[in-house]
């Protein structure tokens, strides 16, 4: 699960990273956002969405994306 701050909500962490990159010579970087990733094994993938809604993300301020990988 990829969880990131909702668009339009101030993301000071993303801004700080964006300001740091040019200092290392990486020019032209924009729209930096810092979120988090939760990796797990689950027997039934239909559990993933309610899991995100109830605990892993706060839907008021975060968007989540579910990425399935073959084990």
């Amino acid at each position, binding site marked *: 699960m990829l969880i990131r*701050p909702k668009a339009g*909500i*101030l993301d*000071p*962490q993303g801004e*700080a990273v964006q300001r740091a990159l040019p200092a290392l010579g990486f020019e032209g970087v924009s729209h930096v956002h810092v979120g988090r990733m939760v990796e797990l094994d689950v027997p039934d993938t239909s559990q993933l969405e309610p899991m995100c809604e109830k*605990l*892993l993300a*706060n839907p*008021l*301020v975060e968007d989540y994306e579910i990425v399935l990988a073959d084990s």
Partner: protein
Amino acid sequence: MRRFGGPRMKFGILQFPGSCDEIDALHAARRVADAELLWHGDSDLKGADAIVVPGGFSYGDYLRAGAIARFSPVMESVIEFANAGGPVLGICNGFQVLCEARLLPGALLPNANLRFTFRQVALDVVDGETAFTSACVKGARLSIPAKHSWGRYYANEDTLARMRARGQVVLRYARGENFNGSSDDIAGVRNERGNVFGLMPHPEHAVDELSGSTDGLCLFASMRRTVEDRAACA
């Protein structure tokens, strides 16, 4: 200091693994009433008349501040207690827990300055007639310490408009004091019904002249008044 001939009202102060301000909250509550600690793993509220969800770092702030504490056995009872109209105060991490539990609107995000900040802040009492501020004076300015890195109050525009219309903004950071970047300078909010209230600054650290201010006491005194007035009417 009994009133109405009944027993003194009692505060229940929650204690999670990682709480760190529950003892100060206990002492603050005991200045105006009885108080007892309630362990997170026990769903029994021990007959408390009012609940304080204290500050700290419940469950290590893992995932998001308050996200895991919200599902503890004691919180299931607090949610029931709040839904039945019982007064609940959330301070700092407790405010985060109450937002995560959806007992209060909005959410707390990392401070705009990305720093842990510890300072005395001036708060304006927007509404002095709530269950949590009736012993304060409307328009009064309270001097109370704040210490957090995750205290930027956020609600979307529609929610903010609804909250303003319903008088749910109870405390605001005074001009120039909003160090964490909270929406609309909001420092403390109540639910629509008026029995749940949360704030980021720490009234329990401002109850003794020794620490520079006793302005925090009025919140605890207001809760006592709320409980006693209700008992007198019952």
